[in-house]
């Protein structure tokens, strides 16, 4: 197949394994494109894309914007802090107002779970989820899997452990779906207070001991400890110092293993808390590969979704 089975990228859950394969094959070609002297192709030159970021984002938005520009699309950016959302406009009104300006595709990040799914039912544009609450962040999971595939040759059969705050993480959920669809084994590891109840029902292993988890896995995807959630009304662990002592990944731990582990982090990294600098900056760390691959993978998703929108129109 050379076409996605979906018209929107709402989550990894809706994708098939063939879809993921197609995205990766297409991303291979775009990765070559972004390493050319002139890093631009004209595929989406008749396309306008709105980036609606109702939640803060630097990395994802920059990556999407770069991907869109490298495909020659016209881009409008919209962030909630500068928009009429502050004045009480509803999501549908905001989206329809933007669509009235003839936009073909919407990339959206929203604090509410399901916001992109809701939008996809009511507006005539391809919707791309750039993170909805604690639910899914599909492009991050795709670029993570793509980076594993690039480093280890394939995702199938690999053992991947996700460390840290699983409870609040859309990256974790999307990664679990993506990895399982590609035939990888998934484990989650973190303090009990940051693991969702019943997470094992998704078919993932649960481990509370970092050393045991590291002994098991081929790839460690270390998530960010969301400092903003700590120390407010609820604290999920006693102190950062204690967290890094019990759950931080450091050189000593990795040296005690008799194997090499690929280390990933979606960023931004809290150096010295979830992982130490010497470890994440070592040659086993692929953080910057993830960032580079992010542009290629997002180009692939944008291109393949655009392909589903047939023909020119005058309206």
């Amino acid at each position, binding site marked *: 197949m*050379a*076409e996605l089975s979906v018209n929107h990228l709402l989550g990894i859950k809706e994708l098939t394994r063939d879809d993921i394969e197609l995205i990766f*094959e*297409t991303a*291979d*070609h775009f990765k*070559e*494109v972004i390493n*050319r*002297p*002139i*890093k*631009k*192709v*004209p*595929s989406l030159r*008749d396309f306008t894309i709105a980036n609606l970021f109702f939640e803060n984002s630097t990395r994802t938005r920059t990556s999407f914007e770069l991907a869109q520009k490298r*495909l020659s699309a016209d881009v409008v950016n919209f962030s909630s802090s500068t928009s009429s959302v502050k004045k009480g406009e509803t999501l549908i009104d905001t989206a329809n107002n933007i669509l009235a300006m003839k936009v073909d595709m919407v990339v959206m990040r929203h604090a509410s779970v399901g916001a992109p799914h809701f939008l996809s039912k009511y507006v005539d544009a391809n919707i791309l989820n750039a993170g909805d609450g604690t639910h899914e962040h599909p492009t991050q999971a795709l670029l993570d899997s793509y980076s594993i595939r690039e480093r280890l040759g394939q995702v199938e059969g690999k053992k991947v452990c996700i460390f840290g705050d699983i409870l609040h993480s859309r990256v974790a959920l999307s990664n679990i779906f993506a990895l399982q669809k590609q035939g990888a084994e998934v484990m989650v590891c973190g303090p009990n207070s940051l693991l969702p109840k019943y997470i094992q029902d998704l078919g993932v292993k649960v481990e509370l001991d970092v050393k045991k988890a590291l002994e098991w896995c081929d790839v460690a995807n270390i998530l960010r400890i969301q400092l903003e959630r700590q120390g407010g009304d609820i604290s999920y662990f006693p102190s950062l110092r204690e967290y890094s002592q019990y759950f931080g990944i450091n050189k000593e731990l990795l040296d005690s293993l008799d194997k090499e582990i690929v280390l990933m982090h979606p960023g931004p990294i809290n150096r010295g808390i979830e992982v130490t600098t010497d470890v994440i900056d070592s040659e086993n760390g692929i953080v910057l590969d993830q960032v580079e691959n992010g542009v290629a993978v997002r180009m692939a998703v944008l*291109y393949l979704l*655009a*392909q589903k*929108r*047939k*023909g*020119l129109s005058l309206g």
Partner: protein
Amino acid sequence: MATINSKIVGMQKVILDKELLEITINRLCQQLIENHNDFENSVLIGLQPKGVFLAERIKKSLKEITGKEMPLGCLDVTFFRDDFRRRNTPLKANATDMPFLIEGKRVVFIDDVLFSGRSIRAALDAMTAYGRPAQVELLVLVDRKYTRELPIQADYVGTHINSMLSQAVVVQWEGINGNEEDSVVLLNREE
């Protein structure tokens, strides 16, 4: 109009058999040598997917004749095509491998069949990502006459044929897609 994927029916007619194809490739090489002398500043670019096989052949024959290893790149034009979102069958991209810059070079595009001319237009666009060449020429194995949709002509032509839109020209290479022998055939497609 028949689409690319439509079923092949009826008899096939061989336009070039193995022997004739060999002679044709040789002649194309001699013509290249005539124009490019020592190939000091020339590069070959095979157009993905099918032009690459011919380009490799040309490169091999040129080496046999002149003893020189010609730089060869392959260029995929999928992202530069003008029928994106306009065709029924989705496009699938192929790998681009351009190990050199073409700034100031004499470029020879190599493709198997010249039909509408649209992929050549896309290739002219795609090429500019690697620099501004001094000159661009086009070499094709088969020129289908009267089917051009753009003002594009080849500089080196293996053979010209008159064919109908309902027909397809297929270049088969030994060992690729299970073909036993090199040949160029004309097929009828089901409407």
